[in-house]
């Protein structure tokens, strides 16, 4: 019998170890698994490398994890935010590392990591500062750079509906990085608003097949990051 349900966010993320690489879904607040991130703060795991498109808002969610000194390095495309000084302050102070990756290359590296592709040639960033140190090669008269697949120890993602097997569907543009991160991590933890029995999802509409998912945590009414930031919340 396959039942991947786990009772609480803390129980689901307690396996995260110091120095793990953690992929965290979300583009801005859309798809950010904020309850799982707060549970990760609670674990106290340190020295993490975090893969996320951004660096969080205010002092909740990803920004709280960073502020709490748990993140050694961010791999992301857009670490600026209108309403958070957490990452910028630490970055300017030399206390956190940054690997800046064009957004599409970041997505493709994660997808490659999950698909067993070691590396690929992409035209993005040729001739720019972000090409520096990478191998160039021409194919059919066009120049490409070599980029390597990206994998992680753990992925934390948010879904709208999950079944016990870990089959997932998402909500609108909250889908973003979650489906590829689920494929690229050794362990994928999902928080889902609705947790249903197998058979509840139309097999034609499943976005993430359960094979990529290890734990499903019900979080029926997830917090909205922007609302927490507006309320002035600071986690923990």
């Amino acid at each position: 019998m396959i039942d991947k349900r786990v009772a609480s966010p803390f129980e689901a993320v307690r396996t995260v170890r110091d120095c793990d690489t953690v992929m965290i879904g979300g583009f801005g607040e859309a798809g950010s698994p904020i309850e799982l991130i707060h549970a990760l703060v609670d674990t106290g795991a340190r020295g993490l490398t975090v893969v996320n498109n951004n660096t969080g808002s205010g002092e909740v969610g990803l920004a709280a994890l960073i502020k709490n000194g748990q993140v050694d390095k961010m791999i992301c495309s857009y670490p600026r935010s209108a309403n958070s000084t957490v990452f910028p302050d630490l970055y300017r102070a030399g206390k956190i590392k940054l690997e800046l990756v064009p957004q599409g290359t970041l997505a493709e590296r994660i997808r490659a990591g999950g698909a067993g592709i070691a590396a690929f040639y992409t035209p993005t960033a040729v001739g720019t500062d972000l090409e520096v140190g990478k191998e160039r090669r021409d194919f059919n008269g066009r120049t490409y750079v070599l980029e390597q697949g990206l994998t992680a120890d753990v992925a934390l993602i948010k879904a709208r509906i999950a079944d016990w097997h870990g089959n997932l569907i998402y909500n609108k543009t909250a889908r973003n990085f979650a489906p590829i991160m689920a494929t690229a991590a050794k362990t994928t933890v999902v928080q889902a608003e609705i947790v249903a029995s197998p058979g509840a999802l139309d097999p034609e509409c499943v976005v993430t097949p359960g094979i990529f998912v290890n734990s499903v945590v019900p979080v029926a009414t997830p917090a909205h990051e922007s609302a927490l930031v507006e309320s002035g919340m600071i986690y923990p």
Partner: protein
Amino acid sequence: MTNKESPIGLSRNQMAERAARDIPDGAYVNLGIGMPEMIAQHIPRGREIILHTENGLLGMGPSPEPGKGDSELINAGKRQVTALAGASYFNHADSFAMIRGGHLDLCVLGALEVASNGDLANWSTGDEDAIPAVGGAMDLVSGIRAVYVMTSHCTRSGEPKLVESCTYPLTGIGVVNRIYTDLAIIEVTDEGFKLVELSPGISFDAVVERTAAPLVDGRTETEDE
């Protein structure tokens, strides 16, 4: 070239309206964050343009009515939007496969500088203290067939943004096809910048003065200046 009194050209809304007029019916288009987003409000009636937002939506519609938005239905600028009939959601790898694979017809982006060979700088001022952040800009310019730029002709301090070669870090090499500014519409050709249209009340000389690279007059018929 600084501190010249700026001639009156198009407003931002007029620029968006003018650029929108050149987007053909049926085009698949990505609009960059900031000024280019305004183009969505000016699609000429009767034309169906499908807007792509790189965070995973094709068929993006206008902002929701107040109180009717969904914090998980946003555009690349992280503003709430809607989805039109015929829309589809997809993940980030698929979204950038669309971009990189050359499936979009057009993108319209902002700029810090555009060089006369089509080089674009729009992601970093190279400022030591700035947090480097690139987002999807490099993917868009390397993958999309036609790259239009929509920008004020000069910076706020009056410096030209159309230059011989960019001084800021590049987003892409030789990628820009066309530039919509408050003063003019300029094409990037093998011979450099070529004027195709002046904004009302703007003279060719006024544009030349505010462009830090040679400008060919490519208008097919002479217009009153």
